[in-house]
């Protein structure tokens, strides 16, 4: 059933789809249990997509860069008179909105890759997210996602895992679309209809519409497995947290999925960005709370988990005329989890001087995001470099997997 679902259920893997609400979707894929080089590890991977272009310079501000404070003006979080961020190393600080991430950074469970970008160099959210998710260099090059292709490429191990998919939400994001089976799940407030009505409907679909039958059957299975997965929170932080908590709960299950994707919207901070006490501050607090909820629900499985948070591109180095930032290029990727080799910033720092900026306006990307993701997929999930370069991120031979991201 699950294989049919994946192939036929989402029959139009056309474009990236936006998700509902501020925080909306977790999708995951069933994954066969596999022997990992004789170890007993059972790795989990959570990809968090921050839609709208995260301002990396406000999350991990380069307070030691001489150009930073003047470029950012009132938005220079971490600068002497502004505050709101605390030092991580000689150059970088971390926004104080993320105390949980800071704690994990200190204990070696979190790391930051800075001045990172996908190969996409224009500034459309929609095309930028397509590139982020399809894993190629062009929004039109693929209708499937790199995370789905990674799942399809996993080394097959010992046992056949029981049917697992679950998931929540209106849609599968592009990053998880493709041949490998995927399910969606989302917290809900609605009361389900009685089982008899659902049985009759499934019978009707089975007789008259195979596509609806497959998808509806999967939905019922998900409902049974997720149970009362927790109603969505009322405010943004609550919504972020409930999506993450549900994901963590399902990934923690012995028979649960092992790869998940979550999307959080709202990072497009063109005006009144408020990295220290406004909108971005609230978003980062909500994200930090979501990380915490994941760790909490994963419990003992957290030690085998990697969470990687990525965005389609960064924002302008200089603030714009309305106390915000416009679409830019380089930004950060955040990694955390018990399986991460943390406690450091990974950056080939390009500097923020006038001649150092990309096109005179953006943080210049010096690390290909695909290199980060390939490093994680190789060392955490055991996918070979050849498969990564050919199938998962086709055309990425030059972006060598980053070493030492995984403990």
């Amino acid at each position, binding site marked *: 059933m699950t294989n049919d679902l994946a192939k036929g*259920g*989402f029959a*139009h893997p*056309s474009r990236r*789809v*936006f998700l*509902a*609400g*501020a925080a*909306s979707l977790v999708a995951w894929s069933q994954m066969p249990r596999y022997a990992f080089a004789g170890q007993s590890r059972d790795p989990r991977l959570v990809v968090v997509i921050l*839609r709208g272009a995260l301002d990396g310079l406000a999350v991990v501000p380069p307070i030691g860069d001489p150009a930073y404070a003047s470029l950012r003006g009132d938005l220079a979080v971490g600068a002497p008179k502004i505050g709101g961020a605390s030092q991580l190393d000689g150059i970088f600080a971390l926004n104080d909105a993320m105390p949980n991430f800071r704690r994990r950074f200190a204990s070696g469970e979190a790391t930051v890759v800075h001045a990172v970008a996908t190969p996409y160099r*224009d*500034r*459309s*959210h*929609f*095309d930028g997210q397509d590139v982020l998710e399809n894993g190629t260099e062009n929004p039109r090059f693929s209708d499937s996602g790199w995370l789905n292709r990674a799942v399809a490429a996993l080394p097959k191990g010992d046992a056949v895992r029981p049917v697992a998919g679950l998931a*929540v*939400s*209106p*849609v599968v994001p592009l990053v998880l679309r493709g041949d490998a089976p995927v*399910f*969606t799940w*989302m917290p*809900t*407030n*609605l009361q*389900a*209809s*009685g089982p*008899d*009505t*659902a049985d*009759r*409907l499934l019978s*009707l*679909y089975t*007789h*008259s519409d195979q*596509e*609806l039958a497959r*998808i*509806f059957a*999967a*939905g*019922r299975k*998900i409902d049974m497995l997720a149970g009362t997965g927790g109603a969505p929170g*009322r*405010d943004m932080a609550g919504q972020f947290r409930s999506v993450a908590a549900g994901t963590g709960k399902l990934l923690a299950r012995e028979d649960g999925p092992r790869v998940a994707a979550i999307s959080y*919207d709202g990072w*497009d901070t*063109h*005006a009144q960005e408020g990295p220290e006490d406004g909108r971005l501050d609230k978003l980062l607090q909500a994200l930090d709370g979501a990380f915490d909820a994941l760790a909490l629900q994963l419990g003992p499985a957290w030690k085998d988990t990697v969470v990687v948070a990525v965005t389609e591109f960064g924002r302008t180095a200089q603030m*714009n*005329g*309305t106390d*915000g930032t*416009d*679409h830019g290029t380089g930004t950060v990727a955040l990694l955390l989890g018990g399986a991460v080799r943390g406690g450091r910033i990974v950056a080939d720092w390009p500097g923020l001087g006038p001649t150092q900026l990309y*096109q005179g306006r953006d943080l210049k990307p010096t690390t290909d995001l695909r290199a980060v993701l390939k490093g994680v997929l190789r060392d955490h999930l055991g996918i070979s470099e050849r498969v990564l370069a050919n199938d998962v991120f086709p055309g990425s031979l030059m972006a060598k997997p980053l070493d030492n991201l995984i403990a």
Partner: protein
Amino acid sequence: MSQEEAALALKRFGLGPRPGDIERIAVDPKAAVLAELDAADITRLDDDRLPSTPDAFVAIRHDQVARSAARKTADMPAKGTAPAAAVAAMKSAPPPAAPAMMAVGGNGGMAAGAAAAGMAAAAPPKPPAGPQNRSMVIYLDEIDARVPRQLAAEIGYVERLVAFWTNHFAVQSDKNEQIRGLAGAFEREAIRPHVLGRFEDMLVAATRHPAMLLSLDNVDSAGPHSPAGQKRHMGLNENHAREILELHTVGVDGGYTQADVTEFSRMLTGWTFARDVDKPAAGTFAFKADWHEPGDRRLMGKTYPAPGGKQPADQQGLAALHDLAVHPDTARHVATKLVRHFVADSPPPAIVDAVAATFTATGGDLKAVSRALVENDASWAGERKFLTPQLFLVASMRAYGVPIEGKRLVSLLRELGQEPWCPPSPEGYHDDAASWLSPDGLTTRLAIADSIAQRVRFDDGPAAIATQLFGPSLSDDTRRTMERAESGRQAAALLLMSPEFQWSRT
């Protein structure tokens, strides 16, 4: 044959069949759809309850100020009584009028009340929490006002077009509460008057509307070399300019560069609206000349000189909007989206070509464009479309003649991921099956169908109404399933979930 075509007309171009509709338009379904385009005042939505944009803006601002003051009071040690503004905001909308046509279900007002009561336990409304603010009250009034219109529409092609264009020029209600309170007025004042008029007029009206200026951050964008830029260090915000190019006109493949985006944003500096509630102009578009970046501008290969003499400098931006409105890439972009919305998730190129050609030949006459889409025989063939959540709920209300109260409607649409005027990005909601057909989406639809079905009574047995709604497209499987249902409610829920109902054709 023409009954099948009638069923298709109501699903593909309309808001879904009501009992008797298929019979009524079967003589000539295509003519019936086209006739809607010529009906007098069909695009207008007048309702005394609904404030104009300026009135809504002023009311929202007063409410915001009052709540802010109340919060400060509440922070003091002695907790006071509820502030007057919050009490005033408790005003609830009157129940929607009963629809013109009530085939089943009894009294609309009573049914709505019962549903709202039953809802309290089953589905508590989601955020925003706390006392209802003025923006939310206006927003829900706007939703309530549209329901009778959706129920009464003979076919609903024009209402579909209205929704299409409001989604094309999407404003995001979640971004700021002022936008939520203005979104309905945006549709009534910037979109509806032009839905069968000229695209350029709609483009200009949408671009200048306060809800859009807020949603795409142009309200404070000023030229660095303008007097305001020099004196007050105001500067550019390029968001609105970029999305006009990428989303509203030529599209992402329209051949513009970052330099074009920046130049266009300079042309739009000073395009804002009056926000001082003590001024008579509050809530109306304002061009602030001293915020405008001086000088000639160059956009997509054409120079737009700085307006000379007494010409107002917003002429520069208007000239650019004019050229964008009639650009061939705009015609193609709009035609592709229209065909995808109404006909097929993968728009057949021949139909797109024909619709784009009409757009170009008429200089963006949207009545001609809407007509061309329906007149094209190929638009009546082709694949099936899966109902969006909004269409699913409107079609359900029409099928049983049961209005749903605005507050509940919004709550259900949140569950389904398509809250009105609240897309998660300026791109608006997608309308293809890939966006909406999912395991969770289907089980949620069943839960909703089941709750709507509580309010339905069948006088002549369930199969009779299925025949009236679907005509010859009713399958034997669906008919049998309904006849064997254990209760009228179960039959009613299953009908809403049947393949005939969920797809534009089977």
